C-alpha cells in the first residue's frame, strides 16, 4: 500500500508542472503555482456557467466569461446586480451553486480563499488600525515569510508608486480617506496576487480624489500580470478606466467586451440602459407609428447628448417636447423634457435657459438612434462606432 502511493507520488513529482498541478488538484487541491504570478506572466480567469441561487432568487445566473490580465475588467451594474456575488465566487469566498471557475488552466471551483492568492480591496477602507502604514503594506509579505531586506525594498517601491512614502510611520486612521484606500491598494499590490478584486474601491472617496486614483489604477496593475476585476455602479467610471466592461443586471452578465464597444454598440436594451449616465431616453413605438427606417423595432433609444436643439444633418426626426426642469453644471445644461408620455433628458453644451413648461422642438439623428426588438435585443447595430 505504502509503496504504491510513494511510487505514485514520486512519479507525479517528476512529471511536468502541468501534471503536478493536475495531481495536486486531484489530491490535495492545493495550488503550487496557480494564482501566484509573481513572474509577471499573463493570467486568465475563466468562468463556466457559474450560478448561485439563494432562497429561490438567482444571485448569479449561468455566467460564462474569460477574463484576462493586462487590462482593467469592469463589472458595471446597479446595486444588487450581482457584482459582489460574482467577485466573492471568483475569490473563493463563496462556493458557486453550479458551474466551474478555472484560473490559469487549473480548476479552482470550491477552493477556499485561504488557499488561493487573491487580493481584495473594498469600498470601506480596510487596514490594520494598530499597525503603521509600513507594517500594513509589509503584512502580506510577512505572512509569506519573505526575507526582511526584500520586504523593505518592496515596501519602499510600492509606497513610492502610491505616493505613501511620507506617511509610512503613521497609523492608517490618521490619514485621509484617499490615503487609507491607497494603503489598502498597496497591500493588494505587494501581495503579487494573481487575481485582484476591487469592489467599488473609490465609492467612498471625494470626487476629485476619485478622478486622480481612477487615472492611476490601470497603470498600477498593468504590468503585474494579475487578472484585475473592478466593480462599479458608475458608467463614466467604467468608460474612463478603459479596458473591458461586463454589464450586469439581475445576476446576469448582459454583455462583455471592450468598454467603448459595449457603450457604443450595446447588444440589448438592458445593457444600453446600464451603460448610460444620464439615463437613456427610451420610447416604445407601435407598429403603426414606427418609422420606416427601423423595421421590426419595438423600442427606440437615444442618448441624452444625441438629442439636439437643431438638426445636424438632413436625416433627423423632430419631436415636440415640453420643458420640465433644467440643471446646469456650468459648461453643459441638462434639460428634462416630456416627449409624448416619456421623460427625456437632453444634454446640451453651454448654459441655456428655458422657461419651465415651454414648448420645444428637439432633433434626433437617425444614425444616433438605437433600436431594439420586442425582446429587447438590439436590431440594426448603429454604424457610428467611431
Amino acid at each position, binding site marked *: 500500500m505504502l509503496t504504491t502511493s510513494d511510487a505514485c507520488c514520486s512519479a507525479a513529482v517528476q512529471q511536468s508542472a502541468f501534471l503536478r498541478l493536475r495531481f495536486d488538484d486531484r489530491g490535495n487541491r492545493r495550488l503550487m503555482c496557480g494564482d501566484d504570478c509573481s513572474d509577471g506572466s499573463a493570467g486568465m480567469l475563466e468562468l463556466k456557467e457559474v450560478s448561485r441561487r439563494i432562497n429561490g432568487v438567482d444571485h448569479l445566473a449561468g455566467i460564462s466569461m474569460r477574463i484576462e490580465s493586462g487590462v482593467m475588467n469592469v463589472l458595471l451594474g*446597479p*446595486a*444588487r446586480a450581482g457584482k459582489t456575488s460574482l467577485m466573492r465566487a471568483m475569490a473563493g469566498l463563496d462556493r458557486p451553486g453550479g458551474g466551474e471557475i478555472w484560473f490559469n488552466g487549473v480548476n479552482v471551483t470550491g477552493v477556499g480563499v485561504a488557499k488561493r492568492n487573491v487580493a481584495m480591496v473594498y469600498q470601506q477602507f480596510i487596514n490594520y488600525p494598530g499597525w503603521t502604514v509600513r507594517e500594513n503594506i509589509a503584512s502580506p509579505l510577512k505572512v509569506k515569510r519573505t526575507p526582511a531586506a526584500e520586504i523593505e525594498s518592496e515596501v519602499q517601491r510600492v509606497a513610492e508608486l502610491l505616493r505613501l512614502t511620507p506617511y509610512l510611520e503613521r497609523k492608517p486612521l490618521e490619514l*485621509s*480617506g484617499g490615503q487609507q484606500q491607497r494603503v489598502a491598494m498597496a497591500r493588494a499590490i505587494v501581495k503579487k496576487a494573481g487575481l485582484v478584486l476591487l469592489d467599488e474601491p473609490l465609492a467612498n472617496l*471625494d*470626487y*476629485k*480624489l476619485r*478622478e486622480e486614483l481612477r*487615472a492611476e489604477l490601470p497603470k498600477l496593475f498593468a504590468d503585474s500580470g494579475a487578472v484585475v476585476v473592478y466593480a462599479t*455602479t*458608475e*458608467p*463614466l467610471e467604467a*468608460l*474612463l478606466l*478603459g479596458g473591458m466592461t461586463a454589464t450586469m443586471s439581475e445576476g446576469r452578465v448582459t454583455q462583455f467586451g471592450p*468598454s*467603448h464597444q459595449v*457603450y*457604443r454598440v450595446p447588444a440589448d436594451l438592458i445593457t444600453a*440602459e446600464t451603460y448610460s*449616465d*444620464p*439615463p437613456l431616453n427610451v420610447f416604445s413605438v407601435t407598429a403603426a407609428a414606427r418609422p420606416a427606417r427601423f423595421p421590426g423595432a419595438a423600442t427606440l433609444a437615444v*442618448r441624452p*447628448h444625441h438629442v439636439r436643439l437643431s438638426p445636424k444633418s438632413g436625416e433627423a426626426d423632430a419631436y415636440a417636447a415640453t420643458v*420640465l*426642469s*433644467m*440643471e*446646469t*453644471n*456650468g*459648461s453643459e445644461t*441638462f434639460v*428634462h423634457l416630456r416627449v409624448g408620455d416619456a421623460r427625456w*433628458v437632453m*444634454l446640451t453644451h453651454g*448654459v441655456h435657459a428655458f422657461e*419651465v413648461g415651454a414648448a420645444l422642438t428637439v432633433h434626433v439623428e437617425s444614425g444616433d438612434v438605437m433600436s431594439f426588438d420586442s425582446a429587447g435585443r438590439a436590431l440594426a447595430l448603429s454604424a*457610428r462606432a*467611431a
Partner: protein
Amino acid sequence: MARIDLQNIRHAYAPDPKSDADYALKRVDQAFDDGGAYALLGPSGCGKTSLLNIISGLVAPTAGRVLFNGEDVTARPTEKRNIAQVFQFPVVYDSMTVRENLAFPLRNRRKKPDDIARRVNEVLDLVSLTALADRRARGLTADEKQKISLGRGLVRSDVNAILFDEPLTVVDPQVKWELRASLRDVHRRTRTTMVYVTHDQTEALTFADKVVVMYDGEIVQVGSPADLFDRPQHTFVGHFIGSPGMNIMPASVDGAAVRLGEHSVPLASAPRLDALQKLQLGVRPEFVRLSATGIPATIVRMEDAGRYRVAHLDMLGMPVAAMLREGEAAPAAPHISFDPAGVHLYADSWRVDLGGAAQ
C-alpha cells in the same frame, strides 16, 4: 421660509483654539437668501458639514451669530429652529411603515389628520415610494431607505429651510438623476430655502442656483454654476470644479501676453501686478484647442468618456488636458492653442481681472 445669515462664524472642535489651524471653520460670513437653492461644495474636511450643522443647531459655533430672518437663533436648539435635515446615510424609524415614517414629523407637530394624509401622499409620489407606502421600513434596501429620509425632509411645508448632507451618497447613479430632478421640482414649486452639502461637483452645480465653494475652513467663491465655470476666482475652484479640472501652468507676463517658453498667449488687457507675485495661467480643458498650429505637444494618453474624449498631453514639459467632442479626431502632430474666452491669469492663486476675458 427664511433668509439665513451667518455672521463671523468660527468653529473649533477642540476646546481652547489658539491659531487658525485649530479652527475647522476659520471665518465664515455668508447670507442665504430666502427661497434660494444653495450648495456647499468642497473636499472632505473643508468644514462644509460643520457649517450645515451650525445652521441646523446640531453644532454650536465657537464664535459668531446665526440669524433666521434677522432674528438671532444662535442659542436656539435644533427642534426650535423649524428646519428639516437629511443625512448622508439613511435614518428611518424601523418599527414604522414608510407612510408612518413620513407622517411622523407632521404628527409630532399636531397637524390635522386629513392634511397629514394628503401631504404624505404627495411626498410619497415625489420620491416614488407610493408602491411601498405600507411596507415596514426595516426590510427595505439602502436606497429605498434613503428615499424615506429624503421624504421626511420634504414633508413639512412650513420649514425655515431644508438642509441636505450628501443625501445621494448611497443611491445608484440612475436614481440620483430622478431624485435630483424631484428636488429641483420641489424647490421650484415651494421656494423653500435649501442648502445642499456635497463633494460632488455635478450634484452641487446641477442642484444649486448659487454654489458656495469651501476649502480648508473658508469660503473661496460663491457664484452661479456658470460663474464658477467661466470665472473661477481661485485656482482651487478651477481645479475642483470641472472634470478634468482646469489646466494650471506656471507663467510669466509680458505686457498684454503670457509667455510660455518661447510662445506667447495674448491676454485681453495688460494686468497690473506686483513683482513678487507667483503667476499662473489657467485654461479649462474645454477651451484647449488641438490643431495644426500653436504650441507643439505630444499626446500621452487618451480617455474615452463616451460623449467626449480627454487627451492628456505634454506641452513644454507641462501636463495639459484637452477635451474632444464625440467623433472629433486629434491631429497626428497636435499643436495647442487656447480659446481667448477661457484664458485666465492667476496671481498668488487669485484670479486677476482682465476686463475683457470670459464674458
